């Protein structure tokens, strides 16, 4: 063990939730996803919140902030509307946040074929239906949280 090379942060492998956003496919670790729900109207807008924040909705009494994943990854923005797309609720302690996505395609065992750099994208993998961009949940949630002001 002592002579082993310094360990790099492990690339996200294992079970990933694969979903569409616009015309592309993305994946987040299954362990980071609490549940997937349709947009639940009525929505309320969040005062003073930046671009990709679409609003809040009431998920069984919990008020969840919804952020457009398309806009976060540089794709054309999607609106938060009843019957359009799905909201992926992140499983993070005390953090009530959902990501607006297209539609969940399934759960697959994926390992990145090409390593991504720093930041939101962890790499690209070959899934059942083709290329899938693997996302890192921590930087993604941090980028989303930064839209609410205060850093």
């Amino acid at each position: 063990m002592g002579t082993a090379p310094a360990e790099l942060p492990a690339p996200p492998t294992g079970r990933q939730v694969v979903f569409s956003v616009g015309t592309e496919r993305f994946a987040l670790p299954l362990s980071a996803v609490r549940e997937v729900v349709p947009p639940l109207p009525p929505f309320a807008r969040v005062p003073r919140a930046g671009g990709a924040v679409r609003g809040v909705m009431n998920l069984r009494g919990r008020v969840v902030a919804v952020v457009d994943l398309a806009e976060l990854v540089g794709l054309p923005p999607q609106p938060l509307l009843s019957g359009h797309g799905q909201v992926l609720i992140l499983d993070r302690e005390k953090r009530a946040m959902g990501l607006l996505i297209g539609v969940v395609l399934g759960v697959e065992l994926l390992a990145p074929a090409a390593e991504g750099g720093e930041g939101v994208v962890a790499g690209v993998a070959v899934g059942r239906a083709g290329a899938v961009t693997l996302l890192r949940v921590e930087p993604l949630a941090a980028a989303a949280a930064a839209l609410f002001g205060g850093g």
Partner: protein
Amino acid sequence: MDLSRYLSLFVGEAAEHVAGLSHGLVALEQSVSTGSDAGPVIDGIFRHVHSVKGMSASMQLDGIATLAHRAEDLVDLYRRHLARAEPAAVDALLATCDALQEMIAAAALGQKPAPDPALLDRLGALTRQALDGRAAQAEPAPGPARAPVPPPAPPLAPVLPAEPEPALKPGPRRLEVEVEVAAACPVPAVRAFLVVKKLAAFGSLVGSTPTVEELKAGRLPGKKLTVVLESADPLDRIERALSQISDLGAVVIRAQDGQVSTPARAPAAPAQPAAAESSRTVRVRTEVLDGFVDTVGELLIATARIREVGRALPPGLRPLLDEGVDRLHAIVKELHGQLMGVRMTPLAVVTERLPRIARDVARKLGRQVEVEVQGAEIELDRAILEELSDPLLHLLRNAVDHGIEPPHLRLLAGKPATGRITISARRDRDRVVLEVADDGKGMSAGRLREAAVRRGALDAEQAAALTEREALALATLPGVSTAEEVTDVSGRGVGLDAVRKTLETVGGTLELESTRGLGTRITLRLPLTVAVQPVLLVRVGEEVLGLPIAKVHGAVQVLYGALDRSRGAPVLPYDGELVPVHDLAALLGFDSAGRDERAVVVADGADGRIGLVVDGLLGQHEAVLKPLGPPLQAVSGLSAVTVLGTGRPVFILDVTRLLAA
């Protein structure tokens, strides 16, 4: 064996003992100065120190145990009337208290803190001094005098002093240990488990009733434990090890060879007055309670939702549904009430440490102060208590720093040299009234007028027109203070205005009375609970927002374009003053409906009244407030969120911070 699951239990209990210790020490100092009987106080102090030592030793937190042990040695001298408590010793013990508190906090994070060697030396030196002082007074003893207490000079790291090895070490024999856990102990099975664990160190366990598995499951019938083990150790050694575990009642150790040890229990024992009561209580983590409140809040909202849906039913079906919903609503309301009752916490939680702090501050400033707390048993919602802690501390420091005069000035003014601060609480219908009164020099209305004019809050003429009471209220404006010198005790700039703002966030108010030369009285009025608050719902474009009714003065319908303007911004004549008007839509980054016919809500902003232009008033609503978690808590100008019966989330605005960002 894994002790981590008992850690939070340890942290909670140990912190309580340290708080009790701190309290006891201040009381000790007071009784020393008044010459009253300090016996019961010292017994209490000893019991707390002893408990901390025992429980930290069982948690293998040897650093905490060592420090507590040192303190115990010193206190033991007072307890046995072998020495008298000197101010220097009380100081050292208070420093020990602080150190223990920090170490317990570190232990809560999974660390094993080491004691400060300087503090250990200080305690050791004081113990030696106390003994030497006694030795000097005592008659010269014939022969080598046996010290009445083992001198604690060498570090007592091995908690058990080494015993002379017997010539022939006896082989292991079978021992039966019977332990009864004190009735006052909140978690008897955990105590019993610690006993088994401790005994296991002395040899091999043969068995126990109840078994270890049953103990882990929390079962201890009759609070009695019997352990059979094979051990070669002397009985008194085992007995001493068990004495480190607090909350044990009777301990009987029987050996196969007929030897019996029934030690007298240390004063840690069960004679606590609350014994009968606490045996029927459970400890619940506060987050669990918060979770219940959230869930019941959601029940209230869900009930409102059902009622809303019922409106769409054909009239013939509605009475049945309404009846059911009414009943459901009544039950949920009752549940909510009961839950709020459970969350009620005595004021003592925040007032307990105040006498100690007053003492420290007074010492630093060369004042003499006595603090009396009345009504500490009065209960408030936990959330309000948490908000109250800092303001109370601030008021107390103010009273010592700016209220109470130095002793010589007090004597000149014909007052006793020791100043008196009274903190008293009482219930007044659905509010709690809390007063902080001192018999110090009082505040000068004239000075406050001058200070307010200097700050530009008023012009000289306005200031002169104020009544005495109004002038005193100036002290709660930002930056107005009559403190002649700024000391590091009360700090600069943050004064009564900060206290007032904190109180207002939980729906409280602050009033000030003062008589020059006789003292100052500050009265706080607080709601008992915060979770349900009346809000005014307003419409901005398509959005609905809530304003706390407590902050709202009134609302008027206006034609926006027809409002008077001053320096380019609209103003509204209201109640004899001109109120600056802001467009709420613009403040929030929303679009307004854009019609000219709108409403202005007049509310309390950070610097006086402000008018907020909205597109419509939707009426008052009893809102179940949910605190904002991340990421929404980062948005400035929001204080909470609620959900209407229609399921619509509505943000509650923090009016005082709306203009800030």
